[in-house]
């Protein structure tokens, strides 16, 4: 079987060397991406487990939608201008705008979330951790 394969490869190699190489690479790549896709679907945790921590790059409306909370609740809690003066405003930009530390804004958001949805509090980030969402 191996001998037949070797003969076959030799045949196509002599007919079209560059194309044969590309074919080999393309087949490997196909397998690579196919495996990755399969792993993704198998290993992806179900939706309910994916809880996002509040991150500094998020906008108030994004947080509201993510936690299924009316936007005005969040906007009010963090004293955000509505509409924002210069396009969407992330929490970090809002902290600068208000002149308060970002940690305070995040605390306000988390408090608002807990108040509105006491049964499903926002996962607390470890202190000092960067504002990265948990499932990134």
């Amino acid at each position, binding site marked *: 079987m191996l001998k037949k394969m070797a003969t076959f490869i030799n*045949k*196509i190699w002599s*007919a*079209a*060397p*560059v*194309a*044969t*190489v*590309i*074919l080999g*690479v*393309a*087949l490997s*790549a*196909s397998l*690579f*991406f*196919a495996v*990755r*896709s399969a792993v*993704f*679907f198998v290993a*992806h945790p179900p939706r309910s487990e*994916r809880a*996002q921590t509040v*991150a500094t*790059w*998020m*906008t108030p*409306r*994004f947080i*509201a*939608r*993510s936690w299924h909370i009316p*936007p005005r609740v969040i906007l009010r809690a963090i004293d955000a201008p509505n509409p924002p003066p210069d*396009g*969407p*405003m*992330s929490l*970090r*930009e809002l902290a600068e705008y208000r002149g308060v530390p970002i940690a305070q804004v995040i605390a306000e958001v988390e408090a608002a979330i807990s108040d509105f949805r006491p049964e499903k509090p926002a996962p607390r980030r470890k202190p000092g951790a960067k*504002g*990265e*969402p948990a*499932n*990134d």
Partner: protein
Amino acid sequence: MTETVFGLVTEFGAYVIFVSAFLSCLALPIPTSIMMLTGGAFVAAGDLSFWSVGFSAYLGAVLGDQAGYLIGRTGGTALVERLSQSPSRALVLARAKTLVDQRGGTGVFLSTWALAPLGPWVNFVAGATGLSWIRFTIWDVLGETVWVTVYVGLGYVFMDQIASVAEIMGDVIGLLVALAMVAATTFWIRGMLRAKAERRNLETQEGVALPPEKVMEG
């Protein structure tokens, strides 16, 4: 990555989506797919309107494709050769040409969304090989409509899972492009084998030896 892209959109709004779509159609390594997903997420959050995101992306992509086509047409083969100096680019360029030659408009259409990594190269080659501008534009516009709809749509639906969506889309598109290349190289190799067999038949029939074939590009 998601954080950076989100930051860019909160700072610059829909303009950055336009610029990103435009530049990526000129083969610059910009993660426009993530940018588009992010745009969709912002629409879902209510921070940006669907029209500003969709229009920016669409206009950027179509204009970028037009620019690529124009560069191919004016710069012609010389520029295409210079751009394909790096071996990996040359490979992709050769594949793009085959696609354009065989299927013209369909090739352009598919390269805007399903085989998006090949897109910029198809634009250059379409211009350089003289594919009619009208044919190019019609199929390009249709394809970009699909691309914008799919990516902004996915961003909208999966607003808070952008990174995951970007990952799986990358894998799916990568798989499609790889399969397309398997198909194309198989076609080429079979053609070459057939051509060689025909040469051998000719030699035996005529009873003469044909001059040895120059080693052609495989």
